[in-house]
């Protein structure tokens, strides 16, 4: 199975084969990450630029570790979008990186479509590390890898995503991936946090947590953005937590062997209680481990393909 795309800009548009190609490769890379010497020489001499216009510790570090384990030179650019303030556009920034022969550009940006815009101006592969509320494809891939590790099969699994769906790129990427792989997806949140025409994405919509997680094999809790309170999406954190926070009591509605995922960082006691985070169902740290393997796999797959072999 081969990954057929030049970039990874989003999960939408990937075939089942593309997704499985990454997951399969990542399974192997995970073995490498567990050796004493975790570094392989595969990408020696290649330059990977980690351009983050939004603050992120986990994702940026994960990409950096992945690149370094492949022996690539990884350069972090903390684009606080300050260069944009100074007058340089994203397109100009990208053209400069192109001129410096960057082999892979990893971009995290606050605006939807930024990765696609960058890819239009770069001849080398681009990995979207999150663009606005659009997509966060590597997160979805590492989530699937984690689910497959525990459940073996992906097809037919019942997944419930809970939280601020409207402002979640993690939710979108996961929904695309899960629908492509034949999984059953529900979303739960207050109507103010469910975007327009959500059902057309092929998911069931619930506004009640207990109903939404009934018989779920997997529950994915999304981080609630504290700063969004003042935009009237919900009255208080207290009420949000009462209605949509996951605790051991509510968890009983799900299957006995349910997995709990969270893309992090977690607000303990708000969207998810501490006993659930640290409990037996939680695979939150496995997600982090798998993130490195997924990103190594992607770098390997993206750099192996020349222009001629990509459609």
């Amino acid at each position: 199975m081969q990954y057929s795309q030049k970039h990874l800009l989003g999960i939408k548009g990937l075939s089942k084969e593309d997704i499985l190609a990454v997951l399969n490769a990542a399974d192997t890379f995970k073995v490498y990450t567990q050796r004493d010497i975790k570094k392989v020489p595969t990408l020696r001499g290649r330059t990977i630029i980690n351009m983050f216009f939004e603050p992120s510790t986990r994702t940026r570090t994960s990409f950096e570790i992945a690149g370094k384990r492949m022996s690539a030179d990884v350069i972090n650019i903390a684009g606080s979008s300050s260069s944009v303030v100074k007058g340089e556009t994203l397109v100009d920034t990208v053209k400069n990186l192109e001129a410096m022969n960057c082999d892979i550009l990893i971009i995290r940006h606050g605006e939807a479509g930024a990765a696609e815009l960058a890819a239009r101006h770069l001849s080398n592969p681009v990995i979207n590390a999150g663009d606005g509320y659009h997509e966060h494809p590597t997160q979805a891939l590492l989530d699937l890898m984690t689910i497959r590790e525990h459940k073996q099969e992906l097809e037919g699994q019942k997944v419930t995503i809970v939280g601020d769906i409207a402002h979640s790129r993690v939710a979108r990427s996961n929904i695309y991936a899960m629908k492509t792989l034949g999984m059953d997806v529900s979303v739960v949140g207050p109507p103010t946090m469910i975007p327009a025409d959500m059902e057309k994405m092929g998911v069931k919509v619930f506004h009640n947590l207990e109903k939404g997680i009934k018989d779920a094999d997997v529950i994915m809790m999304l981080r609630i953005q504290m700063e969004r309170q003042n935009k009237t999406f919900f009255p208080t954190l207290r009420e949000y937590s009462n209605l949509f926070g996951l605790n051991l009591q509510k968890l009983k509605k799900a299957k006995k062997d349910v997995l709990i995922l969270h893309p992090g960082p977690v607000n303990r006691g708000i969207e998810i209680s501490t006993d659930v985070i640290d409990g037996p169902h939680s695979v939150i740290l496995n997600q982090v481990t798998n993130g490195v393997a997924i990103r190594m796999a992607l770098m390997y797959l993206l750099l192996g393909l020349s222009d001629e072999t990509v459609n």
Partner: protein
Amino acid sequence: MNPVVLNSQQISRAISRIAHEIVEKNSGCDNLALVGIRTRGVPFAKRLQAKIKSIENVTLQLGILDITLYRDDIQTGRSHPEIRSTEIPFPVEETKIVLCDDVLFTGRTIRAAIDELMDFGRPAGVQLATLIDRGHRELPIRPDYVGKNIPTSKSQLIKVRLNEEDGEDQVILVDAPQ
């Protein structure tokens, strides 16, 4: 018709001879391990392991290397071989290791294999066994054990077919299409 350079019986005899040579050269089986290079180095190593068991009644440790990530031609524009796992289930440190591969050609695969092996520790020594040596070395690498030397032109292909992978035992020489 492509000429058969080794048939099933000849393969078996060659492996048998190499097994004896390994035991002889290392004065027995102490501190010795076999490592097959994917793909067909693996059944080759397994057959050596079985043969040595029948000679010395010792089961040597067996490892598997997938050298894909250590290759030096990763970006030549072809799509990637699927990578599979490397399994070295024994300490490499202070062990004499016999690398096993089906065909020795440029030597680049062996270079990659040695590099990967070193990431597992510092072996006491590394030897090389190959079923076919077809020449055209590009690196200063020489085999310690050879099933058969077959002079080839660079454009030709040596196809080793082993029961475990291909359902038959045979080595053939193919004139590569233009």
